[in-house]
């Protein structure tokens, strides 16, 4: 085993634990608002933490392992594509912005579904949303979980089972005891680790490659396509790359794990600060992480498996102890995504399904027990599934991201800004989004040369508008709203 790499990772885990225990104090002290504290951190996030938790939740294994691996193969065209994510840094907070913060306080909403419930007053909207969140995010979470275990496995030489166990225990403990506050604070630490790791590795790669000009020369000699925007074989079209602005830029407004953060901040100052910090951080990390993937090519040619590019290049260009610190970054990225998803799925089960429809008058202690219990059970369930992931899970995860965007983007955005929108429109929009996405994904992917998510988002928009306008209770809904 490579102890020089393992020790920084262990130190990182200990810090994360410490934050979890510290956060759990807040849960004990806030007796009257347990749910709001556990699932939303008591709406007290400041600007820096808010920016970090948004980036860290959003930046997952794909930004640190998968993305750089593809950039290694595709060249600068993939870095260009990844830069569509800069928009997430400001777009989500500006669009949901103050209106969402005010409305969610007025409705006393703790989850995205609370907001939809008060806005549309429809049992079916609530149940369908809860169902989508539980199914899709559970799969997404399991996939990240597997990624985390594989990363530990490849770095330390521990078996997959052992690695999975370490990963599961670390995440579960701090999420179960600490709730949202622990998730947000550890996200902040993880965000800083991601930022620092990116910077260190970028510098080391440029030095190892003999300077930027030298690296770009090397790429051009190997294959001139690598330095064009069109990918190594010229197949990345402008249309396809641009359509990623919908998937990873604008559409992110519809992701529940992101929207819930837009109701967690303390005041408008925190939001303003997060806008600036978030844009700079997410841009910096995305740009440089993917550049590292491209720059790694002349230094370490011939890597077959994309996911191995990041770990291999870090071990190649850095001393072992520093590589350990840098490789805590993808670890941090995975953990910070998993923790948020775990808590969100748990809140859907406890708050949106159990408290809404099964036992609305549950006592305080019962709710508290349920929250801890459900979070823990979900975690254990993910662990068991990750031992031998079933095909269905892999399949669901493939379109968790796009499916959720297509389902939620219009009920949330138009729910905020279009008072005529009603429950029929919202339900039609969600059904259209998910069904068309599933069908297109399987039978007609990348329609018109764009990413599959584009058409469902357009269709669900049309469905929302048309059905809202056609149905009777449009006027009453407007008054009610």
């Amino acid at each position, binding site marked *: 085993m490579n102890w020089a790499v393992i020790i920084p990772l262990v130190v990182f885990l200990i810090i994360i634990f410490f934050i979890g225990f510290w956060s759990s104090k807040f849960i004990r002290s806030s007796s009257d608002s347990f749910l709001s504290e556990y699932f939303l951190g008591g709406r007290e996030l400041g600007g820096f933490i808010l920016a970090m938790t948004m980036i860290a939740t959003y930046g997952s294994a794909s930004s640190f392992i998968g993305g750089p691996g593809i950039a290694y193969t595709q060249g600068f065209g993939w870095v260009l594509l990844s*830069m569509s994510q*800069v928009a997430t840094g400001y777009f989500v907070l*500006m669009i949901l912005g103050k209106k969402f913060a005010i409305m969610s*306080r007025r409705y006393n909403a703790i989850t995205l579904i609370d907001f939809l419930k008060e806005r549309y007053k429809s049992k079916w909207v609530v149940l369908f949303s809860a169902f989508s969140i539980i199914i899709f995010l559970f799969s997404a979470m399991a996939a990240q979980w597997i990624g985390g275990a594989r990363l530990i496995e490849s770095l330390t030489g521990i078996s997959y089972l052992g690695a999975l166990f370490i990963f599961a225990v670390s995440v579960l403990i701090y999420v179960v005891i600490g709730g949202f506050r622990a998730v947000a604070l550890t996200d902040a630490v993880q965000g800083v680790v991601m930022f620092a790791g990116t910077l260190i590795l970028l510098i080391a790669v440029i030095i190892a490659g003999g300077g930027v000009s030298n690296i*770009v020369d090397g790429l051009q000699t190997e294959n001139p396509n690598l330095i064009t925007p069109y990918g190594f074989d010229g197949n990345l079209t402008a249309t396809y790359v641009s359509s990623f602005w919908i998937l990873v830029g604008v559409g992110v407004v519809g992701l529940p794990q992101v929207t819930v953060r837009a109701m967690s901040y303390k*005041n408008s*100052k925190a939001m303003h600060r997060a806008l*600036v910090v978030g844009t700079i951080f997410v841009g910096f990390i995305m740009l440089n992480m993917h550049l590292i993937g491209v720059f790694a090519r002349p230094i370490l040619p011939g890597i077959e498996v994309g996911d191995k590019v990041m770990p291999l290049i870090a071990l190649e260009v850095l001393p072992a102890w520093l590589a350990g610190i840098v490789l805590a970054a993808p670890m941090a990225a995975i953990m910070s995504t998993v923790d948020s998803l775990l808590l969100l799925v748990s809140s859907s089960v406890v708050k949106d399904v159990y408290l809404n429809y099964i036992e609305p008058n549950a006592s305080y202690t019962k709710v508290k027990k349920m929250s801890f219990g459900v979070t823990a059970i979900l975690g254990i369930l993910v662990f068991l599934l990750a031992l031998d992931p079933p095909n269905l899970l892999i399949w669901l995860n493939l379109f968790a991201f796009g499916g959720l965007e297509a389902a939620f983007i219009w009920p949330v955005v138009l729910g905020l*800004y279009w008072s005529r929108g009603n429950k029929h429109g919202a339900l039609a929009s969600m059904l259209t989004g998910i069904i068309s996405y599933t069908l297109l994904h399987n039978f007609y992917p990348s329609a018109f040369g764009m990413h599959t998510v584009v058409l469902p988002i357009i269709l669900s928009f049309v469905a929302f508008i048309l059905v809202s306008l056609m149905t009777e209770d449009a006027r009453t809904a407007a008054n009610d709203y």
Partner: protein
Amino acid sequence: MRQEKEDPRFKIANREALIGVGLVLFNFIWWFGFAYGMGSKSPEEYTYVLGLPAWFFYSCVLGLIVMSVLVFIIVKFFFVDVSFEEEGEESS
């Protein structure tokens, strides 16, 4: 029933959401224009800035700097502080 239309905070919120849409359109045009405007030439004719292909430098590196500065300016000078609480209600 409270009437939302009378809440002055929503005017501010709506304006800021529109600024967000404007910003993302600007961002996209900048990104697309430099990348495909300068990058569609043959690689032999590329010029370089700081060792990077010029299309990439202007589209992605400079683009990020421009967007960061723009977001900073807009937030600082055009975004308004509002209270999120209902009137007469204390935050816990």
